[in-house]
Structures are given as structure tokens and as C-alpha cells.
């Protein structure tokens, strides 16, 4: 647990373990718990999170498919990995690739099956995804793109994954990492609007002004990108929790934090600030063997995203200063972004002093 029982008591927080909320009585401003107890509220926060997306192509028993979401999942997966182990990872996203990296490092034989034409389709631009793929292949991971799974036959000792094109793959462990589904059932049953998650306004309020939501379960409009987004990232969950709490107390501040993601694979780190979109221009900055940065400029010249892959020391500071520039709507010169001898710290301070 993140907080001790003592600390919760100190803060005056009533924490009910092993209790689920069965429904929300919005008219009466109360939640109904398993067991029938009613708890009243003035403001309510829904932080119901997300769960792994399950393939609907699984042959029974479904429980033998491995997913990674919790600490217990991670410990269980780790205990099965080793040199004699064959691992099939379905899904070339963050979760799948992190497991692939850990498994191959522990000596397992690893194949990643990705349905899309390349890895990391959702959050990472192709140039970066290609670097990450190369790193995996150098480390011994086999990567198959365009691999559409037809069905999975899961057995005690050996599982088979059949692809639409007739190919078969066998493994001891099949890990499915094909995204997460927001837990919206409680909100839906209460008649709250949903749209790829519990639907929020800029202040993180639901369609009921006394009910808020935060984290992986919700979608919200982001003014930097002019679209509704849902984020499945630790830092967003932390920052949205704090922002929602402030707004529940009356702050009425729009949530405008720059989306931020990271992934550790082998001894390399991937950090992404902002959202990469098809229509925006890409500016790479090569840092030599230590890493690579990639910037994304909108049509009006604003920096809207930055990514770094490489050693933490090479990329972290630059992505962090880029994040500040994204938040401020800076429009740096593309030549400066591409030039590795100009630090992002300098660029952002020059811009700030010119305002």
C-alpha cells in the first residue's frame, strides 16, 4: 500500500478495505456499498482505473493468459522467467516490450507478435519505434509485425498461438499486452456520460458537477491538442488526482499538464512529453551513441511533443526542458532543436527572457 493505515487515520481518511461500491445514488448524493451501507457525499471522486484488455479470441481456460497490471502480476511473471522458458508476447506496446526486455535479459527465448505494421503505434513516432525495435533485435528478441492472432490454445505446459496467415507459435508463457480498458461500469450505471472513459470537462468534472474523476478511467479535453484524450500513465494519475481534489474544493482550474510517459527497456530509457500526431512536423536531434531526441512542431510552429530514447543522463534533462516549452506554447526554431550543441535549457530560458 502507498500509505500506511496510521497515516490515513492521521489525515482523517476512512479507508474501507475489501469493500466495493455497488452503485451511486446521485439524487441522494450517496454511494451504496457492498453489504448495503450508504455513504453520503458532497463531492465524489471516481478513481476506478483501468484493467488489461483481454483478447476475445482465447480458447479456454482464459485464466492461463498472463497480463501485467499489478505488483502481484509482475512478481508472478518474474518467477516463471528463465533460460528454459519460451515467452510469447502479444502486443508491441510499452507493457509487452518491457516484459520482452526483462524476459530476454533473464535468458528466455522471446517473440513479440504485433498486429500493427510497427511497434508502439499509439504513443511513439516511427523513427523512435525503429530505434527501440533495433535495440530489441540486437538483444535477441524476435519481433513479428502484422501478426494477427486467430486463436490461442492455452495448456498447462505449452500454449499455441495461431495467426490468421496460418503460422503457429508455441510458448510456455503467453503474455497479452494489448492495452487497457477504462473501468466505467459504475459511472455508466449512474447515468454519467462516457466516451473512451468517464467523460470529463477541463476541470475534471463528470457530466454531474458534483462527481469528478481522475487517472486511467477518464477522458478529458486537452487545450494544447484541441482534442479529448485518455492517458494510461502513472504521472498523469498522480497529477490529475491532485488537480481533481483542488477542483472538488472549488478551485475551478482547467487541467493542462503536458502528457508524459516513460518506459525502461534494458539499460535505456524512453521519455515522451506531449502527444505526437500524424499531421505535425518531426525534427530529430542525434546525440550520438548515447541517444536520440525527437521534437514535434505543430503547423503554427509551437512545440507540441518531445521524445528521447537512450541513457537517462543523455535525454532526461532535454525532455524535461522541452516539456516546459510545450506547456508554455513556445515556438522554437527547428534549426535550434536539431542542433545538439544548443541545450534545451538555454533555448527555453532565451525564449522566456524574450517575452
Amino acid at each position, binding site marked *: 500500500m502507498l500509505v500506511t493505515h496510521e497515516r490515513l487515520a492521521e489525515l482523517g481518511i476512512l479507508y474501507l478495505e475489501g469493500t466495493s461500491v455497488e452503485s451511486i445514488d446521485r439524487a441522494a448524493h450517496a454511494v451504496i456499498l457492498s453489504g448495503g451501507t450508504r455513504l453520503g457525499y458532497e463531492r465524489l471522486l471516481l478513481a476506478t482505473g483501468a484493467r488489461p484488455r483481454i483478447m476475445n479470441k482465447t480458447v479456454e481456460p482464459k485464466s492461463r493468459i498472463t497480463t501485467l497490471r499489478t505488483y502481484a502480476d509482475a512478481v508472478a511473471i518474474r518467477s516463471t522467467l528463465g533460460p528454459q522458458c519460451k515467452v510469447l508476447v502479444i502486443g508491441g506496446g510499452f507493457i509487452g516490450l518491457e516484459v520482452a526486455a526483462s524476459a530476454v535479459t533473464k535468458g528466455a527465448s522471446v517473440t513479440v507478435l504485433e498486429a500493427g505494421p510497427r511497434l508502439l503505434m499509439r504513443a511513439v513516432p516511427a523513427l523512435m519505434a525503429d530505434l527501440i525495435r533495433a535495440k530489441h533485435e540486437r538483444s535477441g528478441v524476435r519481433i513479428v509485425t502484422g501478426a494477427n492472432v486467430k486463436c490461442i490454445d492455452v495448456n498447462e505446459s505449452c500454449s499455441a498461438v495461431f495467426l490468421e496467415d496460418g503460422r503457429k507459435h508455441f510458448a510456455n508463457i503467453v503474455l497479452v499486452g494489448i492495452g487497457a480498458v477504462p473501468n466505467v461500469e459504475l459511472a455508466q450505471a449512474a447515468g454519467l456520460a462516457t466516451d473512451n472513459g468517464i467523460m470529463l470537462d477541463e476541470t475534471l468534472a463528470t457530466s454531474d458537477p458534483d462527481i469528478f474523476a481522475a487517472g486511467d478511467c477518464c477522458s478529458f479535453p486537452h487545450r494544447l491538442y484541441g482534442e479529448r484524450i485518455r492517458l494510461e500513465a*502513472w*504521472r498523469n494519475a*498522480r497529477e490529475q488526482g491532485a488537480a481533481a481534489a483542488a477542483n472538488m474544493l472549488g478551485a475551478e482550474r482547467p487541467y493542462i499538464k503536458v502528457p508524459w510517459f*516513460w518506459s525502461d527497456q534494458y539499460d535505456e*530509457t524512453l521519455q515522451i512529453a506531449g502527444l505526437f500526431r500524424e499531421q505535425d512536423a518531426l525534427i530529430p536531434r542525434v546525440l550520438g551513441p548515447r541517444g536520440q531526441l525527437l521534437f514535434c512542431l505543430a503547423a503554427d510552429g509551437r512545440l507540441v511533443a518531445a521524445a528521447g530514447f537512450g541513457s*537517462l*543522463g543523455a535525454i*532526461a*534533462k532535454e525532455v*524535461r*526542458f522541452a516539456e516546459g516549452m510545450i506547456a508554455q506554447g513556445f515556438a522554437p526554431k527547428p534549426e535550434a532543436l536539431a542542433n545538439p550543441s544548443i541545450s534545451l*535549457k538555454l533555448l527555453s530560458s532565451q525564449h522566456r527572457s524574450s517575452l
Partner: protein
Amino acid sequence: MTNGLEWVAACDADALQPEELRRFDYGGRTFVIVRSSEGDYFALDGHCSHEKVHLADGIVDGHIIECPKHFGTFDYRTGEARALPACVDLRRYEVKIDGNEVFIRL
């Protein structure tokens, strides 16, 4: 108290710009030297108290040092943890400038 403590030269004072960080390794341990925007020097344990990530790769903002990995923050004047996921304070070490050298007391 002088029980085993000694002043150790960590780096040149002018090697650090204001709001810059420098890693310093000594005796199997690792530290981070900070130069504040006011020009003062501070020394702390080098690894974030949350995970084993070196703070010298992070950034300085005012009196705050921020971890590059998960953005835990510390007040580098006291070592106090200021933002999650960091919740354990960092140990701070005495610093003196002698000539152009930064010494820390270890």
C-alpha cells in the same frame, strides 16, 4: 565532532554554473553537488530516495532538485523530500569552498 569525518575535494567551484548539478563519487558512495541560483553550494546523497536513480541527471528549479526518472523532488538546502514519489529525505553534507575547490565533509 571529528570522528572519522574529513573534508574531501569534490570539484572545482567554477566548474558548476548556477542551477547546475554535478555527480561526485567517493569511497564507494555517490553524491550530488548543487550550485544554487544565488551561487551557494550544497551536497547531498546522489541517489534519489525513491529508486536508485542519480539526481545529477535531474534539474534544479529554485531551491528544488528534481529526479529525472519519476519527478520526486527535494529541497537541496535541507535534503527534505518535497514531492511524491519521493517521501524519504536525503542526507545533506557540509560544504566549504577553499580557493576554487568545493569540499564536502564526509
